[in-house]
């Protein structure tokens, strides 16, 4: 008789980690298929590279660290899939490999493996890449643009604006809402179709793999805040566009509810989701990048454990009564305060240095644009001026930074104007104009040179760049605006 004699219980449900991970893979399939349909073969290859590297990386790590190889539980496959889903299809493959290795080895493996990681591995991998290669992660190919399947180190694409970029500029995107919900191939691989994301999420709910609280709290808070702090004309439109653009749906459905980096108790889960929502809106409105989902979730991740401790402790065996226990709340609070002090000290300490560096920069660059000036001081922009971002006064004139809407996005010019009102220098600070459609404005010396020596009055007759009437007109308007602004300033100053 060959019988087992372990401790009770002697029966278990059929639930297994592998089955859960398989459910995750199935839930991500609709989004993956949408991504492949939208971006072609390259999307599939990026995903395969990501999954393959995740599996290989985890195997190697387990072998080196002398742990049981955890690949059969499929968790590395899920990490690889999730990671690929939050990348644009145009990323070079070596970046994919770097990012996913960081995710499975540094974030998950070294933390102790499955279930031990504080941070969501896929998002941490993405954040890692955002720091090293922000350009590759924030440029998106135009809808329908053919992406080359090759390109290990680099991929040439014509970048195009996403609906999220429009929101960032405070505008409601051109794409229709229904279109955005069903098919929006202008972003990450996994963000192609909100409908596909929802289908996967409903599957996870039905299979009881995830609970609804974190995603619902996340999206609910996000919706309320975007509704309250809307831009444009209609709060509802703004809210819906905000929900459907970028990665917030994908993040709420598949990332925020990740087991190991989120809390397990009811109230802690509500708060966790709400925190993700608040931070996402904050980062979207005032962050460095257009999207804030990655950093919002990553910031909430380390709070999971504490949220569970504070709001999850149940005091009674029978009743659902809970006692919030903040006895150790001082630890993270202290950490936040200390981090704040360090940052504040650094900012204050660096302010002086920054001023010196600023002056040096001004002398170097502005001195050439405004001959005869050597000290520069920033003066406030008069109220009611649109487009004038910054004015710096020198002895012989002013340097004005001016922004003007171009064909794609704002073109930002730095224009120097003498006290006599003459344009003496001109540089393009930033331009998103596409190559062949005004993109060369920044480097075309003949084109820019024609504005020098003018008084901003005859810029309407400027020689246009070939095929870029709108860009030309935008630059001309900007130069004219800068010249007129300075002429008004000097007139006021001399009492003319």
């Amino acid at each position, binding site marked *: *008789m*060959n*019988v*087992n*004699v*372990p*401790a*009770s*219980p*002697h*029966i*278990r*449900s*059929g*639930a*297994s*980690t592998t*089955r*859960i991970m398989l459910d995750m893979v199935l839930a991500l399939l609709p989004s993956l298929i949408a991504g492949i349909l939208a971006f072609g073969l390259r999307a599939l290859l990026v995903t395969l590279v990501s999954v393959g590297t995740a599996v290989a990386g985890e195997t190697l790590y387990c072998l080196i660290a002398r742990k*049981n190889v*955890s690949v059969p*539980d499929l*968790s590395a496959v899920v990490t690889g899939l999730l990671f690929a889903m939050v990348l644009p299809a145009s990323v070079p493959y070596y970046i994919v490999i770097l990012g996913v290795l960081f995710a499975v080895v540094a974030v998950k493996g070294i933390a102790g*493996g*499955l*279930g031990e990681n504080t941070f969501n591995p896929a998002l941490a991998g993405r954040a890692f890449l955002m720091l090293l290669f922000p350009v590759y992660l924030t440029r998106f190919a135009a809808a329908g643009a053919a992406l080359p399947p090759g390109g290990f180190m680099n991929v040439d694409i014509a970048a195009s604006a996403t609906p999220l970029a429009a929101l960032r500029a405070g505008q409601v995107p051109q794409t229709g809402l229904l279109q955005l919900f069903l098919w929006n191939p202008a972003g990450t691989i996994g963000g192609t179709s909100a409908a596909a994301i929802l289908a996967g999420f409903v599957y996870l709910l039905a299979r009881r793999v995830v*609970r609804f609280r974190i995603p619902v709290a996340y999206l609910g808070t996000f919706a309320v805040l975007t509704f309250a702090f809307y831009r444009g004309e209609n709060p509802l439109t703004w809210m819906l566009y905000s929900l459907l653009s970028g990665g917030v749906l994908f993040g709420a459905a598949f990332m925020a509810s990740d*087991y*190991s980096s989120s809390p*397990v*108790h009811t109230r802690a889960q509500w708060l966790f989701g709400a925190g993700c929502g608040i931070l996402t809106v904050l980062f979207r409105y005032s962050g460095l990048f257009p999207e804030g989902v990655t950093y919002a979730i990553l910031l909430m991740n380390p709070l999971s454990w504490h949220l*569970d401790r504070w709001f*999850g*402790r*149940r*005091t*009674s*065996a*029978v*009743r*659902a009564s809970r006692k919030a226990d903040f006895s150790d709340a001082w630890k993270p609070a202290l950490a936040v305060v200390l981090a704040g002090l360090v940052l504040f000290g650094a900012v204050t300490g660096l302010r002086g240095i920054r001023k010196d560096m600023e002056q040096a920069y001004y002398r170097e660059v502005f001195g050439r644009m405004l001959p005869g000036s050597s000290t520069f001081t920033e003066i406030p922009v008069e109220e009611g001026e649109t487009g004038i971002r910054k004015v710096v006064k020198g002895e012989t004139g002013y340097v004005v930074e001016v922004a003007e809407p171009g064909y794609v996005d704002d073109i930002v010019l730095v224009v120097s104007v003498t006290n006599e009102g003459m344009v003496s220098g001109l540089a393009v600070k930033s331009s998103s104009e596409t190559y062949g459609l005004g993109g060369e404005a920044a480097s075309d010396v003949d084109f820019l040179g024609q504005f020098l020596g003018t008084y901003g009055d005859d810029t309407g007759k400027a020689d246009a760049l070939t095929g870029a009437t709108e860009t030309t007109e935008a630059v001309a308007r900007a130069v004219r605006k800068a010249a007129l602004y300075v002429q008004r300033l000097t007139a006021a100053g001399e009492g003319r």
Partner: protein
Amino acid sequence: MEPVFSGGIRFALKKNLSAGKIGTSPVPETVVIPLKQHAGAAASPLVSAGDTVRFGQKIGDAEGLSLPVHASVSGYVEAVEERPCVGGSTLCVVIRNDGFDTPEPTLEAYSRKAQLTGQALRGILRDAGIAEMGGNGFPAYAKLGAVIGKADTLIVNACEPEPYVTADEVLLRNHCPEIIEGARLIRDAIGAVRAVIAVSEGREEVVKSLRRGLKDVSDVEAAILPDRYPQGADKLLVAAVTGREVPSGGLPMDAGCLVFNIATVYAITQAVYVGLPSVERYVSVTGEAVRRPRNLLVRVGTSFADLVEACGGLREDVRKIVAGGPMTGRAVDSLAVPVTKTTSAVVCLLSDSAAETARPSCVRCGKCVDACPVNLDPLFLYRYARTEDAEELKALRLMDCIECGACAYVCPGKLPLVETFRAGKKILKEAAV
């Protein structure tokens, strides 16, 4: 009916394998009677090899919190020695059965109209060697003695939330009048005002039997409780029946209740009205690996092998044999072990769904938190038990764990949760000393 506790699990009960089926009691050639079948001190043997014993004769006893042990057959003592038992080797009295059941009048049989005081009943329970038959074998006299004049409610626990096991159902279906009488007897003896018989709503036949039995009875109530594991646990039972809460670390008596398993109540009626000490009980012999699953009225000391034999034998591909229900029982590796006062079932399984995995791992899915019927956090307890952090274990109320196994049942990572918690409780007890 909505459960009054959060969590718990519903699963396929598989009770129909053995429900309502009663087989012929096996007549063992020898019985092996452990001297420790109860919580507390082991009994010391009162007989030695070569002695002749009668049916019902006291063959072991001890002072303090303990219980006497009685011969379950008549015959002669072959040996007093260590034998493999459920939970390890134990000193046993081995009796060769002469088949006559020559009785020894150990106990006085009372008339059904007799009124007993609490102290009188307590004395009978001790002399009859009655242990709590549904759980850990705590001496029934001690349980009863502690609540005389202090409890207002007696709860007869007939919920039996474990899958497969139907021995308690047999008692309700076939001995309902005795159970009701027993409930009255105990209620009056301890000075309680309510007597409640609690059953699970999922067992229709049982509910019907109880309703029929209580049709003309006004002083004993029925409580039909939700079909959810582990409704039969004392704390949850008290909450469901009385709405009162057993305080953390407390007992049902702290909420004014006395809870007895139905098999214990039956044994009490047998002792009081028949004069029979605790020498037999109903055992479910069931599971997919048993050819003809049945309930048997079995003498204490009968080997599992005799039980299985009486039920058509085992299939070759049996994978696991459990003494008691599969959620809380103990696995055994030999059929030589004997039935004790607390053996409610012998469950023989073909597949081992709880087989250990190579690498149990916690993914922090939180399913255990949802499943825990007593509001504990198994996933955090598991971590702290592994790091032996007594302070955290205490703060997270590990001692309230009823070891029902619900968390381990749902765990996708197949963590050895219950085992770890038992070890954690030991750490807490040592820390308290």
